[in-house]
């Protein structure tokens, strides 16, 4: 069954609380991925509006994210994918069909490949068309990602008849190309692929309690004020803790809202050096 977009790709989701609407583009992507990581119980440390590190409990494995890139996106893979000449060389060497630009015939599709599977498939209108697309086309997209050394996920643009690869974006801006529903699917897939997990569905609206510690700001009072304001905008409950060298807080509300809070603490000159977050285990019931 085809899913219908409730919001066009790249547009603001007006139904969201005003706080989350402050996040757009790569900032929103980074926040979505952090929320997905928190949802499966990982602890996160945010280092900038676009960058955070997630730690898998138990194993202690750490994964880094910047925009929609992760520690599985090698520099070399990204550089080959972004350069049209290099990309053609790599794809041709692996026997992957390359589409001419502009492509003749066929249907232009954007396929987000994560690992060895297609996580989302949309057409030029941003509609989810996964169930209308032939397996051969999906295999073409996954083969394209496999053909480039050091690439674990990427947005593959397929076009032409017969289908060929027209472009590969190793760091797609999910919030520009996907509907809000599909962004959640994509964020889940990207995070869970790193941990070798498969198909763990998250309830993004489940209430959770988040512990937040912001450190390294030149002025903690500014960070406290920002924390209060953002929590109010997000409509979540905030309880500020006491501390001399950091700002600590406990936040409670829907996963999607509280997960946006760390990224919202960055902005202006007085920003924290890092924001540590984790979902309290007792509150995670029903999330994943």
């Amino acid at each position, binding site marked *: 069954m085809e899913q219908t977009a409730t919001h066009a790709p790249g547009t603001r989701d007006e139904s969201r609380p005003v706080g989350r609407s402050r996040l757009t583009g790569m900032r929103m992507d980074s926040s979505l991925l952090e929320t997905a990581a928190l949802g499966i119980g990982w602890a996160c440390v945010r*280092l900038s509006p676009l960058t955070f590190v997630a730690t898998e409990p138990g194993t202690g494995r750490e994964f*880094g994210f910047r925009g929609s890139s992760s520690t599985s996106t090698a*520099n070399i893979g990204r550089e080959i994918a972004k350069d049209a000449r290099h990309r053609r060389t790599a794809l041709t060497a692996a026997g992957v069909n390359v589409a001419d630009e502009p492509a003749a015939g066929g249907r232009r599709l954007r396929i987000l490949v994560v690992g060895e599977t297609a996580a989302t498939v949309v057409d030029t209108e941003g509609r989810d068309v996964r169930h209308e697309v032939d397996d051969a086309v999906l295999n073409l997209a996954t083969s394209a990602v496999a053909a480039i050394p050091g690439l674990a996920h990427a947005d593959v643009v397929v076009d032409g008849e017969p289908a060929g690869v027209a472009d590969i974006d190793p760091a797609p801006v999910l919030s520009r190309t996907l509907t809000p529903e599909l962004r959640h699917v994509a964020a889940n897939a990207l995070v869970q692929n790193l941990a070798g997990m498969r198909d763990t569905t998250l309830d993004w609206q489940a209430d959770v309690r988040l512990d937040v510690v912001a450190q*390294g700001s030149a002025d903690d009072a500014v960070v406290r004020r920002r924390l209060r304001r953002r929590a109010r905008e997000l409509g979540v409950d905030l309880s500020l803790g006491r501390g001399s060298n950091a700002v600590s807080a406990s936040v409670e509300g829907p996963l999607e809202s509280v997960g946006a809070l760390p990224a919202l603490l960055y902005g202006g000159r007085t920003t924290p*050096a*890092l924001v540590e977050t984790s979902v309290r285990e007792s509150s995670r019931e029903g999330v994943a």
Partner: protein
Amino acid sequence: MTRHLTITAVRLYEYVMPMKRGFGTARGITNSARNIVVRLEAELAGETLTGLGECVPRGALTGDSRDGSWSFLLEAARRIEAARVPIAGAEASLDEIRRIMSGLRQLADKSAPSRVGKPFRGTLAGIDIALLDLVARAHRVPMSVLLGEQRHRVGVSAGTISTAKTRDELADRTRRDAKRFPMSRFKGTGEIGQDLDFLRLIAETNRAAGADKPVWVDVNEGLEPEEAREFIDRVAELMVAGRLPETVIVEQPVTKAHPSVLAELQRRANTRLAGSTRKRTPATLWAGRRSPSRWRNHGPLRLSVLADESLWDADDLAELARGGGVGGINIKVPKVGGVLAALDLATAAVANNPYLEIYVGGMLATSDITSWALKNLAMAMPRLDYFTTSPPSNVEARIAEPHLRYRDGGSHLLGDQDGDGLGLTLSLADVGPFVTRSARVPAPTGQTGDEPTPNRFDLPHLDKFGKKQLDSHLLEYEALSRGLDTVRYDPLRFAAGRRGEPPAIGFSWTAGTQTSRVSTYVTGNKQVARTMLQRAGVAVPDGRRFMLDERAEALAYAHKLGWPVVVKPQSGTGGRAVTTQIGSDHEFEWALDAVGEAGYRDLVVERHVEGVAYRFVVLRDRVLSVVYRRPAGVFGDGDSTVAELIGQQNGLRAGVQRLQTTPLRINDRVRFQLERQGLAWDSVPAAGCRVVLSTAGSVTQGGESMQVVDETHPSLLEEAVRAVRGVPGLVYGGVDFLIPDHTKPLAEQEAAICEINASPASRTNHFPLFGPARNVSSELLLDQCAAHGVAASEPTGELCLDVEIRGRVQRVGYRQWMKKLARMYGVEGWIRNTEDPELVEAHLVGPAGPVAAIAALAISGPAKARPDSVRCRHHSSPESSSGRFVIR
């Protein structure tokens, strides 16, 4: 018995001369230029003589590069030191100079990067001038007499007006010069409408001033061929309409890449003017003199296309002639490789075409040495139609005396020379503030401290690599020698895999498929890196990030930390704009300025940790290499200047210079360090005294490398491993560690990690200045192979490769280029074009090092080639047994 002059010493002074006012051409504004003074010392029958020359390296225009030209010049100086020149008759002396220069041209061909044709001409010119000056002094005649003087006076044809002038300024300058120079010359912008407007404006201004004289526009390659055709057509129309003078010169409208277009434009100009019925005006009076005979009673109107950048030597002259010829040629000494080469070229040109006009042009931001040399050349030219070398008044300082001047204030004629040779003396006091490097050959032999002997690596097949490209090649060499096939995308990126399969591993510089964009970001951002390292429990100096405009806050924080502190850019690399040991507000301000001048907007202020800089290279849980990086410095010998000691030190490091080090230079940072020690570039430090030239240990800042991993304390090795583990996704990295003593435990000293790098250079470990080499490339490659399940074999000493080069590789001299390289490196095999116009195939057989080097260099090829990819596959057995490399 024939007397011989023997060269006993060569002194070199590289300097950067600022101009008083920027000078604009179609290429942009020039505000300063780098030149090198060559001072020869010689002995003749007990008498000491000197000769002065000036190298004018100007990048692609003269086939030079900054460091390449200096290295070549040092080698050339060693070649000519002890050279003997007969002082019997002028011809015998000139023949010997020609022989010496021919040998140096061969040396230049061998020394230059493979893509550069006819290299180092601007550098060769300086040697040639110095030799001629020296020999002329030995003969006790001016240089022009040694060359065969043809005329006694030389006048400047026109003062050239820069594109930086406004329309009003152009008119004013034209008006002022109307009665002085025979012609008006200005630099074109390459914008047709504006250049035509300026042509008309100059013509009208001259007429109004009673000097209807020729106008000359130098376009400096600023037009595309189609634009140039339109420009010629419109100039011709204006001439026919009487709105421009009867003679107009258009100099080098298109690039050298269009050799046939200049001749085509000349034919076009002739055709457009052939039917003109415009009446000629009587010979014009200017400055109380009649215009030269060649502009009187001239027949048809004359629109002359003049070749400048297109003409390097006799080959280019022949090419221009084949296309139908042009109206004139500009022979520039640095462009053709010397005064003798210029004279020989002019002689050949006149012999081929007696109507071809010859012009001797000057170069921007050069000194009186070049100006006097060009004047002497002009006096000896077999034909001279135009000369535009005016006295160098637009430079901050005149470095040699006497200054070239006009005969009098209103004359275009240049003053006469007193003295033999060029009649010049170099003023060290005047050149001193602008000197960036200096060297003396033979090198000083005094005490240089208790230093170990630097390593030398005799690997000529690595000479043609750039530094980062060398790192990438070292990895590809490991891949090929271990039986993997490779695909190279560009000089810094390649992939490798099992034979017959798509490549599974890849490298961007030294970052493999395990190095992510995230870890590169974390390590590249000093504040984020510090945060991550602190989280991992690694010792890092206290510090904080500031924007460049938060100077007061940054200074207050420095006071809070307490002196000394370190200032460095937030995301800089290679030690650029890093200042350590800052001990006062004044030094702090200077350091902030250095960050701003380097183009950074934010910075980090850190507590200074006492210790020297070490680079640890970590692969997962192992430290592969520890290189001690001593900040640049020299030891005094009580006899040599600081500048000469730097030159000597560069000479000692020459064995590894092309492979990993950066030559020491006298720049603002070095002057600052010298000033801190109460020294200047020409100070003579006492014997054994260590002069500090930099406080940063980075080899790109001239630091000296010594491999010490075997003696480094295990606790320090563990700390470095912890630092790399502290960055998510980083398995291979360079850790910069400040340590007072690397043999002592971490707990017994105050040490700190100041930086971490996700793509550390390899060459420092392969080719340290001191100590044993460490093959980190091999370790990294094997690790990546293991991570991706790619089987690598034991390394082999011989390779046999099938190579496919795709892209613009046919009809660009690619096969000749590879043949030359293969023969130079002793590699056999063949190369051939294929039916696919974008594919060349080669078969390379020989020692693994040279074969892999050619395969890596193939992605660049000759200058006109644009390869897209180079694929190397192992071939089971060699096809060639001839021992040669041939073009099929």
